[in-house]
């Protein structure tokens, strides 16, 4: 399967934060959810893909081209939706269309105005007066107007109401009907990717915690609950984000480790949200125990 986006061994260090050996790839024709808590490195990774952040080592290819060397050719075919608008807010949609048109060989004005209409965006109103959801749709309309084959969304749904979020998912579901396209969707609202994403990459503290199909992720992890005294010590070792409270415990567990657990323990499949929460807890727990060891 041909990869539309491929990241190999990406490293990037800042004073207070570093991306460490990021590896993942998105095959053509699919949607990847890019999740992780705030500050896990999602935006830095996206900035590296766009050549806005210089990479220390590693290689990123988009459409099979090098993200540094071929950045202009890549951007011709790339659409980006940020969490905030990146255009002059005192202009209206018509004026913005005039501004952007000459930059893209593949720009299609007809498509632009069709999309604007379809998304219920007025073309004579200042884009600064658009609601957050309208701004997001406006950025998507721009991406579609130059026939972007890969759309990268950086936290597009933060601060959006449920209706606007649902509209975006509709648009993306329609977009990906063409199997030559791809979507990389960064978000911390995992309900958004839970349904439509084919692949999921979880970043945690600047490292890839998981990358692969969403189904495999949700099938391989479960939330286990019960009384702590029923929990064998060998099993406790394997738990992720172990959390004890007065009447029992809960934790994340790999479904492989579920074989032979005592009947008194309950388990159910884990949502991406729960997986993220337990990863974060595991982190705290580790730091906590290290602290004690010192």
């Amino acid at each position: 399967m041909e990869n539309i986006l491929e990241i190999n061994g990406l490293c990037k260090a800042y004073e207070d934060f570093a991306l460490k050996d990021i590896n993942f790839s998105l095959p053509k024709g699919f949607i990847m959810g890019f999740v992780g808590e705030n500050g896990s490195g999602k935006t830095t990774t996206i900035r590296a893909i766009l050549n806005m952040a210089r990479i220390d080592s590693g290689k990123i290819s988009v459409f099979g081209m090098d993200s540094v060397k071929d950045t202009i050719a890549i951007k011709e075919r790339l659409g980006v939706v940020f969490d905030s608008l990146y255009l002059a807010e005192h202009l209206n949609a018509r004026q913005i269309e005039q501004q952007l048109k000459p930059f893209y060989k593949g720009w299609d004005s007809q498509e632009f105005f069709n999309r604007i209409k379809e998304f219920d965006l007025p073309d004579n109103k200042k884009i600064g007066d658009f609601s957050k959801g309208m701004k997001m749709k406006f950025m998507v309309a721009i991406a579609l107007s130059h026939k972007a084959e890969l759309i990268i969304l950086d936290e597009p749904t933060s601060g959006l109401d449920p209706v606007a979020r649902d509209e975006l998912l509709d648009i993306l579901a329609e977009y990906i009907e063409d199997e030559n396209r791809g979507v990389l969707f960064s978000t911390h609202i995992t309900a958004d990717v839970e349904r439509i994403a084919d692949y999921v990459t979880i970043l945690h503290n600047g490292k890839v915690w998981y990358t692969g199909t969403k189904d495999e992720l949700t099938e391989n992890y479960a939330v286990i609950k019960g009384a702590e005294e029923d929990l064998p010590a060998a099993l406790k070792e394997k738990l992720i984000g172990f959390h004890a409270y007065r009447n029992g415990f809960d934790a994340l567990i790999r479904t492989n480790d579920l074989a032979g657990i005592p009947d008194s323990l309950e388990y159910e499949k884990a949502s991406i949200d729960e997986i993220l929460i337990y990863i974060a807890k595991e982190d705290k727990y580790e730091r906590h125990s290290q602290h004690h060891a010192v």
Partner: protein
Amino acid sequence: MKIVIKNKSELPIYEQIEQQMKAQILDGTVSEEEQLPSIRQLARDLKISVITTTRAYNDLADEGFIISVAGKGYFVAPRNNELLRERMLYEMEDGLEKTVLNGRNAGLTDAEIVTALRKFMEG
């Protein structure tokens, strides 16, 4: 073809699709050789991932409920399809087994059960 996805269901989405498609193929709601929506269309309509619909279609094709025609898409398997026929026979036997068991539990003789079945078939 009517498919309803329940997000809160314990069943994975691909299994929900498979079950509902099977039921509609078996009870004839969907006629034989009818074309099904493409994998990507279905994913779009249900707002679910392409991998999920691919998995459902692959499973259904493996079990003989639907067939993939290269370059054209997916179709409901014809009734004379060996696999589908086998599947239907299995469903029938399964139902008969239950019928017989229920009849015996109710204290009917085998002859009475056969009579009841004949009556039922004559409508």
